[in-house]
């Protein structure tokens, strides 16, 4: 009876109405996911800086807009701030020999303080009525279009960049550092370059997000690495399923962003079902863990010790 009441209280129109907003958020987070894709997939470096640099992007953008700087310039400044964050992680790792994950965490923690300083508090609002913003949830349709145009431009640039000598050298560094050194590639510089590029994208995404939601918050980046990974992985699984061998680099980038959109659509449904939002992060982490585990478990299912033991026992019998 209670169940019936619950279902009859769900209004499909509400879901429909919330979808565009989720799509807009998904596209904006997709930019962040492109950054995660660069480090996690191309460089083979799990960079935790992003939780900090996402909020840095938001903080810098909002504070500058409030100070009267035009929104595009404010975004450019966030991008620079993101690069700087990546540079710090890169230097901690290459120059000071700190393991990659720890280097990212150290930068992330310091950015927490830096962001508090920039915001002079835990959050700052920017009202779309008083300032000219690039995207805003007040006009979701235009936000989707603007964000999509930005994404298209970014994907083109990334596609070009990773086809150049320098981009190839970054990919080689991620694929095989031994070989890269033997081929005269300065793998330390390549790691730093990739970290700068990645965090620039993450901060850009944070800057757009703060405009979209109308405020920057010290906590807006918390757990963003997991959201980014979720987008990368969902995109990969979907892309492989649809295109299989025809997945080229261009499609991989597109599917990373699509992964972000799908992630936010799922979130939309979860919210619509009125599941407790406190559980969202748990759910996301579970999804990422499952998708990361599946390829491993699949390989194991084909050849495990237990199986080998069973086969041996059958033979003996």
């Amino acid at each position: 009876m209670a169940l019936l009441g619950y279902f009859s209280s769900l209004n499909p129109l509400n879901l429909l109405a919330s979808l565009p907003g989720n799509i807009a958020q998904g596209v904006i987070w997709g930019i962040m996911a492109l950054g995660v894709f660069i480090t996690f997939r191309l460089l083979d470096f799990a960079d935790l800086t992003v939780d900090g640099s996402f909020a840095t992007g938001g903080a810098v953008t909002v504070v500058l807009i409030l100070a009267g700087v035009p929104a595009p310039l404010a975004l450019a400044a966030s991008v620079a701030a993101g690069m700087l964050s990546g540079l710090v992680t890169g230097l901690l790792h290459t120059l000071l020999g700190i393991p990659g994950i720890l280097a990212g965490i150290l930068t992330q923690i310091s950015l927490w303080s830096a962001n508090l300083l920039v915001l002079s508090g835990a959050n700052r609002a920017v009202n779309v009525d008083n300032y000219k913003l690039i995207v805003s949830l007040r006009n979701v349709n235009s936000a989707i279009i603007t964000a999509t145009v930005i994404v298209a431009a970014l994907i083109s640039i990334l596609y070009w960049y990773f086809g150049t000598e320098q981009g190839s050298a970054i990919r080689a560094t991620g694929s095989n550092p031994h070989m890269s050194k033997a081929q005269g590639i300065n793998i330390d510089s390549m790691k730093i370059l990739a970290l700068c590029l990645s965090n620039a994208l993450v901060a850009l995404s944070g800057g757009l997000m703060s405009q979209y939601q109308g405020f920057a918050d010290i906590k807006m980046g918390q757990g963003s690495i997991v959201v980014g990974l979720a987008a990368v992985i969902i995109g990969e699984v979907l892309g492989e399923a649809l295109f299989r061998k025809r997945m080229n680099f261009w499609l991989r980038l597109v599917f990373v962003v699509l992964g972000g959109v799908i992630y936010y659509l799922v979130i939309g449904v979860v919210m619509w079902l009125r599941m407790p939002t406190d559980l969202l992060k748990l759910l996301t982490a579970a999804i990422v863990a499952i998708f990361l585990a599946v390829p491993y478990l699949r390989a194991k299912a084909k050849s495990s010790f237990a199986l080998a033991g069973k086969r041996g026992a059958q033979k003996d019998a």
Partner: protein
Amino acid sequence: MLELKNIHKTFNLGTINEKKALCGIDLHLKEGDFVTVIGGNGAGKSTMLNAITGVWPVDEGTISIDGVNVTAVTEHKRAEFIGRVFQDPMMGTAANMEITENLALAYRRGERRTLKWGVTKAERVHYREELKKLGLGLEDRMSVKVGLLSGGQRQALTLLMATLRKPKLLLLDEHTAALDPATAQKVLELTDSIVEENRLTTLMITHNMTDAINHGNRILMMHAGNIILDISGEEKKNLKKSDLLQKFAELAGVQEETDSVLLS
């Protein structure tokens, strides 16, 4: 072409794991020398190659390549002069990049990585010709990811990558040890033809005495961080496996039985 003067290297200095791996190596290679290097496990062969490529700085001594003192030069900068093939077929290539991309990376060894396109059309034609010479049919699979190739194919590709841009020095560290005998033979033949065609100065480490005797114009034997034997010219041509084993026993002062275990 290569000049090693009094090279010393000790690992884990001042700990209980202290290991003197190179004890004053002196070596001079003339241009076009093809030198094979033999010696038991832990003799210091790989360490000598690592010293030349600059994996770490040496403790003492100087290294010059073609008259340039590179003792203070870092590994990736020295790569400009050096082509390398490792023992592990996985080490020399980037598994999740295409054959063409791997070759293009190697073709730019020693150059700055700019924002120019990573592989040009003209290069592709060139690579196809070079791949044909390997005789493995790789010229028809140029856009395949290297991770899908067999160990032997990867080793042949690594050899091509090491020599695509003519190096001043080619260093081979047991590059056929992980291959089956037939493939190892094929890769060795390729090595010979590439070295000969480009007149490359080469150092080749091997555990196979017969290979060490049959290839190159000079043979070095290492033991406990020293070069204990250096034979070239006519004497090398007439060398037999039994001679080597006997010399090793005399110089290293080890029993002959253990040597054959270590060396063959």
